């Protein structure tokens, strides 16, 4: 078996690399000598909010049953029938699982990376949540709650593409994205019906519409922003909003179906 010294050396190198990566949170263009970036803080008397509803007009797609029968353990773990969730519209035409985010208007500001991870769970042979946002450098915690092996595969184009196997009972994986990228499609290399989408931004101004189609982006500094919405089947839209100190603005979007 391998002697200890070499093993420890490798470990030490890995740890060192990890440390230097953590310290180096400078944004491109920032003064290179700066020891730590100056994080932008939204003044307590200025925080604005943008809310809205995402709607869908058109024929509601028929429910499509997902066939997991090739993996009986998945059928059991899913507890009930699984339906395609690529277009989820409620009775009132509200569109869920749309990713809404500030596309521009925050240039020159650097935001602190949240210490709490964002979790994606493989549960019932399904990615939960399906649509999610995360900040650059924030930890993505990948959990497998299933009794089967999954292989999570974020098909990133700007960030590093990777895939990793995670067996039943394996500890969570901790991964980070290093660059903004909207959106990264995620699949499971083993179960073809499993899909998720991750939006990576270098600020905390994003939301996912709920079952009622609504979203809220809060704690915004006053300013003029391009608010964009992305939906996996319907594409993207954007509109401009301006909010003053403690301002409230509404940005509603309607996608038209075929």
């Amino acid at each position: 078996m391998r002697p200890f010294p070499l093993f420890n050396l490798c470990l030490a190198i890995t740890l060192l690399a990890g440390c230097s990566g953590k310290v180096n949170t400078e944004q491109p263009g920032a003064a290179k000598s700066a020891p730590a970036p100056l994080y932008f803080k939204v003044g307590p008397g200025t925080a604005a909010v943008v809310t809205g509803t995402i709607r869908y007009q058109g024929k509601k797609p028929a429910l499509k049953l997902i066939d997991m029968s090739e993996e009986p353990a998945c059928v059991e773990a899913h507890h009930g029938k699984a339906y395609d969730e690529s277009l989820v519209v409620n009775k009132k035409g509200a569109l869920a699982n749309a990713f809404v985010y500030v596309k521009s208007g925050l240039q020159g500001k650097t935001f602190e990376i949240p210490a709490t991870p964002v979790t994606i769970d493989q549960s019932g042979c399904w990615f939960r949540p399906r649509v999610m946002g995360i900040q650059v450098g924030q930890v993505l915690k990948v959990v497998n709650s299933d009794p089967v092996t999954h292989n999570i595969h974020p098909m990133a184009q700007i960030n590093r593409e990777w895939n990793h196997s995670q067996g039943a009972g394996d500890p969570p994986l901790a991964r980070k994205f290093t660059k903004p990228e909207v959106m990264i499609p995620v699949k499971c290399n083993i179960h073809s019906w499993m899909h998720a989408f991750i939006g990576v931004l270098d600020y905390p101004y994003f939301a996912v519409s709920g079952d009622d189609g609504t979203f809220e982006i809060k704690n915004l500094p006053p300013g003029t922003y391009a608010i964009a919405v992305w939906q996996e089947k319907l594409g993207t839209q954007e509109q401009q909003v301006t909010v003053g100190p403690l301002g409230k603005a509404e940005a509603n979007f309607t996608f038209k179906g075929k």
Partner: protein
Amino acid sequence: MVFCVGCKTSGNARPVGAVEEIKAPLGLPLVPIPADNPPTAQTIALGRKLFYDTRLSKDNTLACASCHNPNLGFTDGRSLSLGVGGMSGVRNAPTLLNAAYSPLQFWDGRASSLEEQSADPIANPIEMNQTHKVSVSKISGNPAYKAEFAQAFGPGPVTLEKIEKSLASFERTLLSGNSPFDRYEYGGEKTALTPGAIRGLAVFVDPKRGNCAACHTIHPAYALFTDGRFHNTGEGVNGEGEFNDLGRFGQTKLEADRGAFKTPTLRNVALTGPYMHDGSLKTLKDVVAFYAGGGDSNPDLDKEIKAISLSGQDRADLVEFLQELTGEMPKNAGPPGKE
């Protein structure tokens, strides 16, 4: 490196007895025999005795058989093996069954023969942790061993080289073939495999489906289920795409060998879990799913490792096939005196 410095043997000791033929069971080729260590009944018996002797560990608690237990397919059933004092090793104990065919020994191939391999774990600080000098002295202090070494190698002192050669000759007898697969493939017994295992075999060899045989090779006349080479499957990679255990790279310093480990044989694989060099996969089902998913990505991933579209049935069939690779156990391989 703490071992194999100053322990290289000169190759002077030669067995003196009549050469013993080691017969290969159905499905296995002729056993390669080094010119300077033809197996004899005496060296094989001596190697067997040493293999089960705890005198070869620092605190007399461990023998070779502690991690290569004949009841567990000559493995220990653990993810990582335990050395003296319960110290955890860094890799999974490989089976010794059919190790005689491997061109290089250990997960990283650092020994080029069984002779070179056999004494390494004895001196390894995280395994048996006893210097070769002490081992030679403990063994030669025993009158029965002294006599047996004289019978095996002729007059002269007990040496490390003689210990290595005896252990290696015993290991060469640890052959296991004549599995249901062998009887089906090489014995013309078409009912030896279950229908599921026959389907699994088809997936196993099909380059467009399982493609398992690309590395776990099957020859028209025999099957070792290993190419004896080193591959990076991504097992053990961390979130930064790096490996704590660099595997073959530690020997060759070639970039392409980063994170690469020797292809293990799949013979008796149903007996030798948990799996992979770090023992991180518990069941054969886990292993098949690992490969179906395309392993774990990293910069040096082997080009043969990619996501495979296998149905749940295909994966179940593969597992069923792997379970049919359990062969007959070699005779006279257990602790001496317990035939």
